[in-house]
């Protein structure tokens, strides 16, 4: 493969925390020290950073290809600066056997960006029998999770975690008390009461987290919380980290940038799982990100077709697409002063790569040349029908955003070039 020199770039290095002017060379799909190259690209002072590693992307394969395929999700990812999609197992059928994982891996070849797979923790995500964690890991699963289906039976979860620990497998949990959150579609409180919608107390997250952390302590398993979205959950998380448990926490970009009032007159594109929180919670979670208590930001990309959303709020399907809007939405956190660009890239790229044991998330020589070039200040108004995803269910339709991806490389190959489109 030919070599490329990216010059005149503002290099965003999450590992060193540096934000400096410089250049970067690619050869044979990997980053090397600067030097002569066959092709020279002038970055015109724009930001060059490691590609985003997005944990928790839902692709509709197998089962719901009309909502999203690996090809369309991959194009959306490339346009959003996401170079690795870590895909969820909540497909139809559920990715709970090596054979189904094998099928998904075959289909994933249609994506222009890298794809990794999370497998279910229990068969059919039903919370009763554990999956073949060993075989699935050998087949390429990077983590195990039942997604938003909480394993309600504590004994089952305890055995799953004990077994996963013996294999050194990472488990991703969804901290939520399943009883308290049953039937809810919004966070309880003043707004939910006015709208007459069944709400869940934000305490359900803390209660779920407390239970999970007790089991993590008992089993010693490596554990990641997919989405921490409330202030009430943070003290337990801080204590768990301080006591040396192998835990990390993520949150979704939607919980960092929107709040429950955005639901307004029953806007179903703002129905996500867990539901959007109060502004106080949003600020607390953004603060936890600044403090490093929360490690990872995900898009929680969840494509839903128009029919699933054009329903009364309670009946509408939850979830929002996010691959393409993750970067500009996350720029709001930088503009608001919560994070610097290198700090943001720890949460978007370095931390998720490290947690999953993937290469990437760094600009160091030798790392794979998974890169994103972006203009952090370019303003635009989002039109959902311009998104590459098959489903257009974004809460940012019509929103003013800043931050445009200019180009994306995966293993040194340009998979998106804004100038060429």
């Amino acid at each position, binding site marked *: 493969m030919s070599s490329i020199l990216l010059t005149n770039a503002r290099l965003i290095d999450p590992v060193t925390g540096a934000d400096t002017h410089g250049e970067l060379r690619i050869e044979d799909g990997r980053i090397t020290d600067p030097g002569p190259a066959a092709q020279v690209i002038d970055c015109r002072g724009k930001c060059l950073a490691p590609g985003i590693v997005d944990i928790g992307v839902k692709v509709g394969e197998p089962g719901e290809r009309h909502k999203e395929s690996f090809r369309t999700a991959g194009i959306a990812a490339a346009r959003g600066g996401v170079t690795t999609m870590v895909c969820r197992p909540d497909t139809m059928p559920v990715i709970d056997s090596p054979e189904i994982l094998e099928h998904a891996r075959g289909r994933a070849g249609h994506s222009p960006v890298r794809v990794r797979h999370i497998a279910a923790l229990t068969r059919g995500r039903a919370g009763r029998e554990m999956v073949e964690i060993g075989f699935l890991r050998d087949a390429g699963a990077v983590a195990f999770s039942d997604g938003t289906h909480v394993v309600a039976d504590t004994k089952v979860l305890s055995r799953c975690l004990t077994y996963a620990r013996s294999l050194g497998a990472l488990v991703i949990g969804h901290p939520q008390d399943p009883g308290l959150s049953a039937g809810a579609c919004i966070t*309880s*409180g*003043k707004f*939910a*009461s*006015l*709208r*007459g*919608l069944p*709400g869940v*107390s934000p305490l359900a997250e803390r209660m779920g987290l407390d239970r999970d952390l007790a089991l993590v302590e008992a089993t010693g398993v490596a554990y990641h919380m997919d989405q921490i979205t409330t202030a009430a959950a943070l003290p337990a998380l801080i204590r768990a980290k301080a006591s040396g448990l192998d835990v990390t926490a993520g949150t979704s970009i939607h919980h960092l940038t929107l709040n429950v009032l955005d639901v307004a*007159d*029953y806007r179903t594109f703002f129905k996500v799982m867990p539901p959007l929180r109060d502004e106080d919670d949003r600020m607390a979670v953004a603060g936890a990100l600044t403090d490093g208590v929360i490690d990872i930001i995900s898009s929680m990309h969840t494509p839903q077709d128009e*029919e699933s959303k*054009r*329903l*009364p*709020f*309670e*009946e509408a399907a939850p979830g929002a697409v996010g691959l393409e809007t993750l970067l500009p939405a996350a720029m709001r956190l930088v503009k608001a002063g919560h994070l610097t660009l290198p700090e943001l890239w720890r949460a978007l790229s370095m931390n998720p790569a490290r947690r999953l044991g993937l290469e990437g998330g760094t600009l160091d020589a030798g790392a794979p040349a998974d890169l994103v070039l972006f203009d952090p200040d370019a303003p635009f108004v989002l039109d959902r029908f311009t998104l590459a995803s098959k489903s257009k269910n974004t809460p940012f339709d019509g929103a003013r955003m800043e931050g445009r991806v200019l180009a994306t490389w995966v293993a040194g190959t340009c998979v998106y070039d804004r100038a060429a489109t």
Partner: protein
Amino acid sequence: MTFNQRHLLGIEPLHPSEIIALLDRADHYAEATRAGHKHGDALAGLTQINMFFENSTRTQASFEIAGKRLGADVMNMAMQASSLKKGETLIDTALTLNAMRPDLLVVRHPQSGAVNLLAEKVNCAVLNAGDGKHEHPTQALLDALTIRRAKGRLHRLTVAICGDIAHSRVARSNLILLGKMENRVRLVGPPTLMPAQIDQLGVEVTDNMAEGLKGADVVMMLRLQKERMDGGFIPSEREYYHRFGLDAEKLSHAKPDAIVMHPGPMNRGVEIDGTLADDINRSVIQEQVEMGVAVRMAAMDLLAANLRASAGQVEPGGPAAR
């Protein structure tokens, strides 16, 4: 005073002056009906469709009579029996009906927000006849009219709303309306039947009837909606009646001239004592039903006037019926 709405989806979007305009018009219709004038032509030539996705004999009958008294062509659709069973979505149903060119669509639906969703997709005026646990605006308006006629005013009154607040769209619409008109609102009921953070909406909340009714001008009882209960909200009906059922003793804490209201249908012996409900010196429950027709006539009249105005015929909120 004018009424400038295209739909009547809730009390929340209304300005106090619009509420007064509606009540004034309703008062006019109430008097006209009592004087024996039971047929007008304010809605002549207009088509009114009542779409009830949830059973309601009383509200549907009230809307039907209101429409007929103003000369509308009224059609009732029992939606439970029809297309939804065939798998049609709410929006498709709305679009199908819209193509039949109705002028007034009266909708009741078990889901909060469903009527708002439907209103976005049709050209006619939509009246919310109750959506889930959200709003029931004509009920709040008929309650307001009943209070205004009994008390001579609709401000600076103390109103106690008692019972199953959590599952009640009537309570929500009422507390919004009474708040807009600058009344003191108290919500009384067991904490398991109170919506979360409802105290942040400018109302007082208590689980003690004596305390809640103290000095009240109006005592509004709510139906204990047994069909909405998942179970476990209250220990038993008899304990509920003992603590929260309205009887003469509990009513004695209110002002001596306090009126007793209930949106119906009543569970005698659960939320209200039967004798008290029938006491014509205290209970205005029958008057509420009468005012229901008048308020619905007024609402449809004003919405139809706005509909005509937007089609370029008459001034908005103008004198269509008098």
